[in-house]
């Protein structure tokens, strides 16, 4: 076999390439946070700039009777666009509108309500991510992961703050966290990779603090026999380091009061 022929044969191996979705996912895990934010904010900037321009044009047209019908048609089209907005997923052109609209109730709610609203948003982002993964929308995947991770970071920061400042109110919030983590595990199974690792340690520590706080508090309380069993089970789980499980039991105990 001639050397040139041999080299040509070796070059057939150029055909070996990694899966595109794996490449994007891995890139996102390594550098997605900073790069992705830039991309998202550019996308938002572009969208709102165009909306503003369109609004100015519409305002000029609607002043004249001849343009009433086109203006109405525009409004009907607007309805269709809104439909598209509500069904959009992270990475879609219309998604920034949906994200901005969802932020309104969070921004204008009372401070103590905000964490619960953030939980709801994080769960929504997780549902988006699940849809993206199930429908294999590779292009949307980095944005969907990034959106979820950003929400999850806000949720974990809010949760840590509640635990540190008012642990007596944290049990309800912790339930949401545990639920969110369960749902996240399901999505991770579909994706075949871990997501939102940055905040896991914070959440675990906060749950640990909360469980210890609750156990200490319950020691000072008189408990029914059933509650006492739950209390002991929670204590055992905590000793074994299974804080999420301990939290679930403490939640059951609180419901028995």
């Amino acid at each position, binding site marked *: *076999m001639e*050397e040139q022929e*041999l*080299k040509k*044969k*070796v*070059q*057939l*191996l*150029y*055909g*070996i*390439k*990694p*899966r*595109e979705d*794996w*490449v994007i996912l*891995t*890139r996102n*895990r*390594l*550098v997605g*946070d*900073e*790069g992705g934010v*830039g991309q998202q904010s550019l996308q938002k900037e572009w969208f709102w700039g165009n909306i503003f321009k369109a609004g100015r044009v519409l305002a000029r047209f609607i002043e004249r009777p001849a343009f009433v019908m086109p203006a109405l048609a525009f409004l009907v089209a607007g309805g269709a666009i809104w439909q598209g907005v509500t069904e959009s997923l992270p990475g879609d052109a219309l998604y920034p509108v949906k994200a901005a609209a969802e932020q309104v109730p969070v921004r204008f709610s009372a401070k103590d309500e905000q964490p619960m609203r953030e939980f709801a948003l994080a769960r929504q982002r997780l549902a988006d991510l699940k849809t993206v993964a199930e429908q294999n929308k590779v292009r949307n995947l980095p944005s969907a992961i990034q959106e979820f991770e950003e929400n999850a970071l806000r949720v974990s920061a809010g949760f840590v703050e509640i635990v540190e400042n008012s642990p007596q109110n944290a049990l309800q919030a912790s339930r949401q966290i545990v639920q969110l983590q369960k749902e996240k595990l399901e999505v991770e199974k579909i994706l075949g990779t871990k997501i939102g690792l940055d905040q896991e340690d914070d959440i675990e520590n906060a749950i640990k603090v909360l469980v210890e706080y609750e156990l200490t508090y319950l020691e000072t309380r008189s408990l029914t026999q059933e509650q006492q069993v739950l209390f002991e089970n929670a204590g055992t789980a905590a000793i074994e380091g299974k804080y999420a499980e301990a939290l679930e039991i403490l939640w059951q105990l609180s419901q028995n009061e």
Partner: protein
Amino acid sequence: MSEDFGQIYDQYVTRIYRFIFLKVPSQEIAEDLCSEVFTKTLQEYRETSIANMQAFLYQVARHVVADYYRQETKIQVVSFEGVEETGPFEDSFIDEIVLRAEMEEVRKALAQIRDEYQNLIIWRYLDELSIPEIAQIEGKSEGSIRIGLHRALDSLRGKMVGQEGVPNVPV
């Protein structure tokens, strides 16, 4: 900084993946090890300055593959099932089968030669690195790389000739 690393990742991910894929039993393992290479490199990139990124990545890839085999003593034959191919291979089904068979033939032959020869062939003829670049990765003189390449090609030729006559096309 992450943005810069993103560019590095984009530039090298296919080459590093291919380098690893040719040495391990499955696509999944290649993906895991390739992720590990870039994770380790990112850590190093954040902490120190890497003078030669290409050489560094290949060195990490070699260590990662070596670590993998230290843990896994059993070496299996790689299958091309599930490998994504692009480019001129999509002309027709028959062409693709023939091409896959040829790829398999080369890959099997490559898998049978010494690891250092594999590396030299991958770097020179697939990744198209220059002799000085390979010398830098290997930490050897350019002369010894040239000799090594010559021997590597001879070795590969020997294995490929040995395979001739064996039907490769899947039925």
